[in-house]
C-alpha cells in the first residue's frame, strides 16, 4: 500500500476509463447496415452493404465458412460475421436479444424456440440433412464393429449429451437399434465428442457423418445401422429483428441456391 502511490492513481483511472469504454461499446449493437469503411465506391446493383450476422450450428463450420466467402465475393460491400456454436446456446442468445440477421440450426426443435417466441414470422426452410456415423480413431484400435459395441462396458464411449441435437438423434438411433449404451462421457457438443476420438481418448463416438469427413485422417467412420432413418434436418430463417434485413433474405436464398447446395454437399450434408 505504501510505495508507488503516485503510480497507482493514474493506473486506476486508466483502468476505469477502459472499463467505461467497454461498457459503452458493448451497448451498441454489433450488426446493422453501417459503412464498413471500404469506401471503394463499388455500390452493387442490389444495394446490399454492411455487416451480416449469421448464427449457425457448430456442424456447419466448414460449409458456412465457404458459403460466407462466396457470398462476400458476390456482394463485396457485405461483411458476413459467422457465430458458430451449439444450436441450443445460439438460440438462447437470440431469444435474449442478440442482434442477429440469420439463424441456421441443427434441429427443428431448436428452431421452434425461435418461431414459437415470435422472433421470426417466416417459415424456416430445411436446407440440409445430416446422418449419424460411428467415429473411431484411425486404425480402430478397439475393434468397434457397429452400434452393438456401444453397449460394451469395456469400450470407452463418448456420446453427445441428450440435451443437444446430436445427442437427441443418438438416443433415437440407439433406441431404434435396441442398444443400451454404456457411455463414459456425454459431451456438450458434437465437436467435443469428435475431439475425444481424434485424441484417441475414446474408442468410439456417435457423431454426424459430416464431422467424420471434416476430421480427415485421424478419424475413421463406421456406418451405423439404421442411420438413414434418423436424419437431422437443418432449418434456416431470417429473423424479424434483423439489423440488415435485405442482406439476411439474400443470404438465406444464397444458402438454398446452387452455391449453397454445392458447398453443403461437399461437406457431406444431404441436400433436400
Amino acid at each position, binding site marked *: *500500500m505504501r510505495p508507488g502511490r503516485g503510480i497507482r492513481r493514474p493506473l*486506476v*483511472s486508466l483502468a*476505469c476509463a477502459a*472499463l*467505461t469504454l467497454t*461498457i459503452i461499446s458493448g451497448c451498441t449493437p454489433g450488426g446493422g447496415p453501417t459503412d464498413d469503411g471500404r469506401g471503394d465506391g463499388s455500390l452493387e446493383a442490389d444495394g446490399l452493404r454492411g455487416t451480416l450476422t449469421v448464427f449457425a450450428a457448430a456442424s456447419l463450420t466448414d460449409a458456412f465458412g465457404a458459403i460466407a466467402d462466396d457470398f462476400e465475393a458476390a456482394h463485396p460491400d457485405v461483411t458476413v460475421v459467422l457465430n458458430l456454436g*451449439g444450436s*441450443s*446456446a445460439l438460440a*438462447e442468445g437470440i431469444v435474449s436479444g442478440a442482434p442477429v440477421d440469420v439463424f441456421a440450426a441443427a434441429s427443428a426443435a431448436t428452431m421452434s424456440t425461435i418461431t414459437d417466441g415470435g422472433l421470426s414470422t417466416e417459415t424456416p426452410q430445411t436446407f440440409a440433412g445430416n446422418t449419424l456415423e460411428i467415429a473411431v480413431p484411425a486404425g480402430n484400435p478397439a475393434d468397434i464393429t457397429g452400434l452393438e459395441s456401444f453397449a460394451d462396458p469395456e469400450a*470407452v464411449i*463418448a456420446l453427445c*449429451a*441428450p*440435451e*443437444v441435437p446430436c445427442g437427441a438423434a443418438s438416443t433415437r438411433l440407439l433406441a431404434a437399434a435396441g442398444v443400451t449404451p454404456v*457411455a*463414459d*462421457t*456425454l*459431451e*456438450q457438443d458434437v465437436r*467435443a465428442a469428435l475431439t*475425444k476420438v481424434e*485424441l*484417441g*481418448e475414446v474408442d468410439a463416438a456417435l457423431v454426424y457423418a459430416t464431422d467424420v469427413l471434416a476430421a480427415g485422417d485421424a478419424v475413421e467412420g463406421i456406418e451405423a445401422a439404421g442411420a438413414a432413418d434418423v436424419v437431422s434436418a437443418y432449418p434456416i430463417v431470417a429473423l424479424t429483428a434483423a439489423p440488415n434485413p435485405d442482406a439476411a433474405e439474400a443470404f438465406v436464398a444464397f444458402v438454398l441456391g446452387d452455391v449453397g447446395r454445392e458447398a453443403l454437399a461437399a461437406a457431406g450434408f444431404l441436400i433436400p
Partner: protein
Amino acid sequence: MTALETKPRPPRGDGHPSGVPAVLWLPAGLALAFLVLPLVALVGQVPWGDTVGLLVSPAIGEALWLSLGTAAAATGLSLVLGVPLAWVLARSSMWPAPARRALRALVTVPLVLPPVVGGVALLLLLGRRGMLGGPLYEWTGIQVPFTTTAVVLAQTFVAMPFLVLAVEGSLRSADHRLDAAAATLGASRWRIFARITLPLVAPGVTAGAVLCFARALGEFGATITFAGNLPGVTQTMPLSAYLALQSDPGSAYVISLILLVVSIVVLVSLREKWVGGLAS
C-alpha cells in the same frame, strides 16, 4: 513495532468512511454494479415455483455432492503440494532473476490459460495416449480421463495457483527475524518451517485454501475437456448448469443459484485482512 506486528491489525476503513476520495466513488460504484448486476439478473430469472422440486431432485443432489467432494479433494491436494511450492517461491529472492521470474510465471500460467486449453493439455499429458498417461495405460491399464480423479486433477490444475500466490504473499510479509532467532537457538530447518513459519502464515494459508476451493467449485472448461461429463462420475454443478441451459434454462438458473449461494457462503467466511494479504 515488533510486538505490534504479530498482533492482528485493526480492520481497515473502520470509522474512516471519509478516507475515500470523492472522485473514486463513481468508478467504484460502476465496478460494483458491473460485478453484481449480472447476478441480480440471474436471480431474477430463477423460477421460484420449481426451485424446491429441483433442489430435492436426485440429479442435482448428486452433482452438488460431487462438486463439494472434488473441490475439497482438489483443495487438499493443493495444500499438500502448493504450500511447499509457495515456500520455495518466497525464498527464491537469492536466486538469479531469470530463474525466479520464470518460476513465478510458470506458477501463474494456469491463471491466464483458458481452462479448455488447460483441459486439452492435461489430456495430452495424462490421456491414454498422453506423455505420462500413455505408459501408465500400457503398463497398468489405468485410464485417468473420464474418472472422478480426473475432475480433481483438472480442478487442482486451475485452482492451485490461487493458493500458491496467497501463501507466498503471506510468507514474504512474515517476520523473518523469528526464523533467524529460532535458527540461532538450534532449531532444524524443518522444525522452523513447521513450528514458526507455518503458524505465522496460517491466515494466508486459510485464505488461499478458501479461494482455491471456490475456484475449484466453479471449474468448468478444464473439467469438461479432460474429465468429460457423466452424471454421478464427472458431472459437477457447473457442467450440469451448462447442459441444463441447452434444454431447460429454468433449472439451469436454479443450479446456478445454488452454486452462487455456496460460493458466497464460502467467500463471506473469508476475513477481510486475509484477502488483504493477497494484495501485498
